[in-house]
């Protein structure tokens, strides 16, 4: 018996019991569409998180001072120490000692009260150097960024983010305007392009950036000339671990520390953050897939159930077929093809429904990350559904194939 004959028989058998076949198929359909949709949602979440992290620059390292120790060795909060200096930044940026580093910028800041005309706004202040746009991946929307000369001269110039623009200026061009930052006059020379949320609580567009020297001299009075963070740009995302080693060595040397365990700084790479985030979302995707997979197994059991009923119902037919020359293999094939066809068709329809739902659902539930359907998961879902047809069809089909013809013929 050929495969085509078998398919013809299977379709014929399924059509002879349309409602039952349809309901059985529905079990697989729901399972497959659930797998596709939920894995898509997991992938979507994973990609969204990665994009947010990468928007900070995937080749970025952040150096924090160690926790300050108060009296009696009491540990203070993370990054509260004041061990980093501008000279550390210059040493790190030196390509001689750290070839995998493109450049490094310092960062010092806090909250700042901004006023312009009768508008005021509280924003996040960052004092840094001229390489900030490239290192932190902040392109300019208009105007220009301050220069090395401005940093040396501690010029009172500022570059502001989009949120600040909308809250302080009502339609006016902010370039060239003088705003007050903590009651000090600063001239706006540039506007940063829109960047969006970093995925955390901080809005990356709600910033005001000034030369670090100006911040020290006029805005962060009393806290000395310390650097709160150093951002290091590595030559590539792959070079971040080499750059980490180099930066560690430079700082250990400069701080005269021989034991790396005693280091008075910590280095965090975006790659680390990315990796742990991908791990988390990976587990999420796996869990969603597993839950959906359970419904697929339930669908498979439904197929087995119906195939057993079908085999019993067709006992006499099996007897007739055997009497006129069907071999075990022919009967086995007939029922296996039937169950695989049932599952495969359910799987194919489930893929379509899964695609449809992944388009429709984000429109209805806006908090859902846009599902990303990967082609391998579609092929896998279809393969698995056919496999389920095979696995759960095997027992009923085998039972049919082993029926003895005289007993099957006598069956009423």
């Amino acid at each position, binding site marked *: *018996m050929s495969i085509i004959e078998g398919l013809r028989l299977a379709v014929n058998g399924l059509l002879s019991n349309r409602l039952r076949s349809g309901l059985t198929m529905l079990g697989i359909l729901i399972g497959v569409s659930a797998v596709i949709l939920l894995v898509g949602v997991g992938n979507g979440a994973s990609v969204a998180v990665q994009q947010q992290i990468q928007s900070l620059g995937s080749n970025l390292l952040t150096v924090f001072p160690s926790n300050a120790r108060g009296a009696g060795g009491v540990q203070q909060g993370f990054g509260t120490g004041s061990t980093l200096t501008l000279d550390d930044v210059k040493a790190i940026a030196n390509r001689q000692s750290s070839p995998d580093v493109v450049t490094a910028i310092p960062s010092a800041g806090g909250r700042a009260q901004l006023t312009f005309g009768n508008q005021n706004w509280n924003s996040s202040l960052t004092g840094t150097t001229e390489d900030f746009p490239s290192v932190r991946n902040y392109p300019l929307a208009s105007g220009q960024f301050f220069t090395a000369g401005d940093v040396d001269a501690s010029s009172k110039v500022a570059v502001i983010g989009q949120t600040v623009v909308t809250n302080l200026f009502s339609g006016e061009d902010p370039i060239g305007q003088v705003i007050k930052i903590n009651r000090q006059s600063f001239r706006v020379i540039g506007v940063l392009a829109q960047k969006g949320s970093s995925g955390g609580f901080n809005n990356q567009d709600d910033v005001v950036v000034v030369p670090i020297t100006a911040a020290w001299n006029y805005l962060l009075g009393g806290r000395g000339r310390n650097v709160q963070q150093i951002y290091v740009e590595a030559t590539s995302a792959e070079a971040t671990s080499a750059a980490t080693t180099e930066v560690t060595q430079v700082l250990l040397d400069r701080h005269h520390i021989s034991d790396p365990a005693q280091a008075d700084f910590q280095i965090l790479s975006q790659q680390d953050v990315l990796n742990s985030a991908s791990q988390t979302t990976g587990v999420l995707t796996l869990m969603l897939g597993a839950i959906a997979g359970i419904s697929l197994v339930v669908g498979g059991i439904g197929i087995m159930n119906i195939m057993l009923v079908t085999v019993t119902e067709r006992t006499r037919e099996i007897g007739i077929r055997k009497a006129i020359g069907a071999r075990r293999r022919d009967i086995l094939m007939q029922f296996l093809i039937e169950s695989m066809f049932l599952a495969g068709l359910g799987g194919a329809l489930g893929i379509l429904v899964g695609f449809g739902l992944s388009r429709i659902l984000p429109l209805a539930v806006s908090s859902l990350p846009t599902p990303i359907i990967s082609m391998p998961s579609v092929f896998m879902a279809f393969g698995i559904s056919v496999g389920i047809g095979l696995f759960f069809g095997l027992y009923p089909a085998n039972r049919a194939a082993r029926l003895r013809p005289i007993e099957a013929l006598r069956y009423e």
Partner: protein
Amino acid sequence: MITLEGITKVYRAGEVEVPALKGVSLHIPEGEFVAIMGPSGSGKSTLMNVIGCLDQPTEGRYILDGYDVSALTDDQLAWIRNRKIGFVFQSFNLIPRVSAAHNVEMPLIYAGDSVQRRERAMAALESVGLLDRAGHLPNELSGGQQQRVAVARALVTDPAILLADEPTGNLDTESSLEILKLLRDLNQQGRTIVLITHEADIAAFAQRVVRLRDGVIVSDERQALAAELVR
């Protein structure tokens, strides 16, 4: 064509052994029309199962068309049933979901014979006079027509013997006569036919009657053709 030598068949019902055939030896040459007769419990159904290769004898040798059937596997038996035997059952045993033509075609499907399958099925239907009913489902046909479809199905692989088990048991007199005439015509074309029945007037259509009782052959005689069939 058919040679049975000392065939016994013992059924096991729990601890008890029930002998259904106690040493049956029989030879049926090619082209013969044999009726096997006996009351229920005589072992004729068992004999029919053995001759039809649906069941294996406990002991003895069975040679069908040159093949020693006693020692074959299930799949080999399926092949023998497909190629050498055409079955006609009391209850027609057509598959209800498919058309008459497809029912007739079915043995060819299992034979793996795809050459002119539909044409051969149609020719078989024509030989039983049902070409115009080819597209009908079995339940759209009368009992007599269904049995003629079954005969067409039995003939389509051109088997060595036609094995008819109470073929008229579910039919009225007129349809019965129709089927018996059909079997006679086939026999006159040279087909070997084994007819199993418990009715003497049905057995009267055969050239030879073998009577079975309690698992043994009690008589085996040739007879003159029934008068009403001689045209």
